């Protein structure tokens, strides 16, 4: 299943994440190579978001290890990673530009043009003074994506970027992301709208009940029931 590509940018080994009496990740082991667009698919509660949050260093795994770009501590490589969550991660009361200016400072970006640049890249107007709270859902998602792109990350982790976005904007976003991938970035997209990514994604990663059950080149859901019952408990 491993690609012929060079060194993997992300290695995950036997990742377990337990929340009290509930395990969201139940032993995830995988390698992901650079310059690809991965779509992470699965039902609700399959552990997609938890996996993404763990990659972003927001969850401490109960056991197992994550290595990103050779570093096991997220903080060492956080400059190289962009993260977009399901909520917008933006302050509702400030305009898009003001939001991005603040986050740019957190990344030590002082150039004033960078913020306008990413806002234009996602197809919005940097001059817009309206606070983000009054944006439409589609605009907010795009602004949120702009925030994730701010530090020009090598790795992008996106959680449900297309939810509640109209089809037109969503296809726009997919095109933008595919372009970003072509620049050599690695992109992970957790989504329910897999069809949007057909043709754009290099690989579909199927998750079920806290595990990666299959990785396919095509958007074709693998037979899963056998997987589950055949699993040995130890």
């Amino acid at each position, binding site marked *: 299943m491993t690609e012929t590509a060079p060194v993997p940018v992300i290695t995950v080994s036997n990742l*377990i994440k*337990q*929340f*009290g*009496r*509930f*395990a969201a990740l*139940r032993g995830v082991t995988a390698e992901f190579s650079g310059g690809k667009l991965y779509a992470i698919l699965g039902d609700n*509660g399959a552990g997609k978001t938890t996996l993404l949050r763990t990659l972003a260093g927001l969850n401490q795994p109960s056991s197992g290890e994550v290595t990103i770009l050779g570093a096991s501590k997220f903080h060492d490589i956080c400059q190289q990673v962009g993260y977009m969550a399901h909520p917008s991660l933006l302050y509702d009361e400030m305009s898009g530009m003001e939001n991005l200016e603040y986050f740019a400072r957190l990344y030590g970006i002082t150039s004033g043009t960078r913020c306008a640049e990413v806002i234009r890249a996602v197809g919005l107007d940097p001059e817009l003074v309206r606070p983000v709270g009054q944006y439409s859902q589609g605009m907010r998602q795009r602004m949120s994506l702009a925030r994730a792109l701010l530090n020009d990350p090598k790795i992008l982790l996106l959680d449900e970027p297309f939810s509640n976005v109209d089809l037109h904007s969503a296809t726009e976003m997919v095109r933008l992301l595919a372009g970003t991938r072509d620049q050599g970035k690695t992109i992970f997209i957790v989504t329910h709208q897999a069809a949007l990514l057909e043709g754009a994604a290099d690989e579909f990663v199927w998750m079920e*009940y*806290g595990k990666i059950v299959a990785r396919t080149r095509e958007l074709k859901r693998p037979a899963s029931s056998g997987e*589950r019952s055949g*699993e040995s*408990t130890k």
Partner: protein
Amino acid sequence: MIQSLNDSNDSMKRAFPILGVLTAILLSYGLYMALVGAPTERTMGDVQRIFYYHVPSAWTAFILFFVNFGASVFYLIKRRPAADIVALVSAEVGVVFCTIVLVTGPIWARPVWGIWWTWDMRLTSTLVLWLIYVSYLFLRRFSSSGQTPTLAAALAVLGALCVPFVYFSIWFFRTQHPQPVMGGGGSIDPRMLHVLLINWLAFSCFAFLVCWSRYRLEKLQRDVDQAHALESLLDPRRGVR
């Protein structure tokens, strides 16, 4: 995992009753000595005998809070779940003994000083200590399970650091204000001291015993939770979400 559970259960099965019997003997001997063996105090009379429960409880509670502090620091550094359980059980049992101190204190104070409560330095600092560790237990109860150990350990460290401040502030607060004359002060009859130490030993053994079983219980509970968590996802019908 099952194997290791059985192993430690076996060693527990052997050691626990021995310690239990020893503690029971110590406790009954301590009770006998406190009620009969120790000499009657000259001015306070028999009511002073509560002293043999009041003071050992306080010492035991202080030791347990100290254990809680040590375990919390250890947890923050090493992140061992066992240290977290030690911190939890020592705080729980410590609060129980601290409560005994706060209940026996007024019972003792009423006949002797004629008042239930006085902002006496020792009583007041014990009360503040009790408040701090009760809030610790509240935090443990109300935080979601994954982050409880870390948050609780941080609070335990702050709480322990607060103790010297509590002590000094109340010491100075008291020296400014008149307070009832405390009985005696200074030397204690060697026979009384003997009974006191016996009782303290008995209480410490008892506390250790309770902590131990509580530790086992908590460990078991966490193991069960973990097994449950890993299993629940196998069978979607049992979906815990």
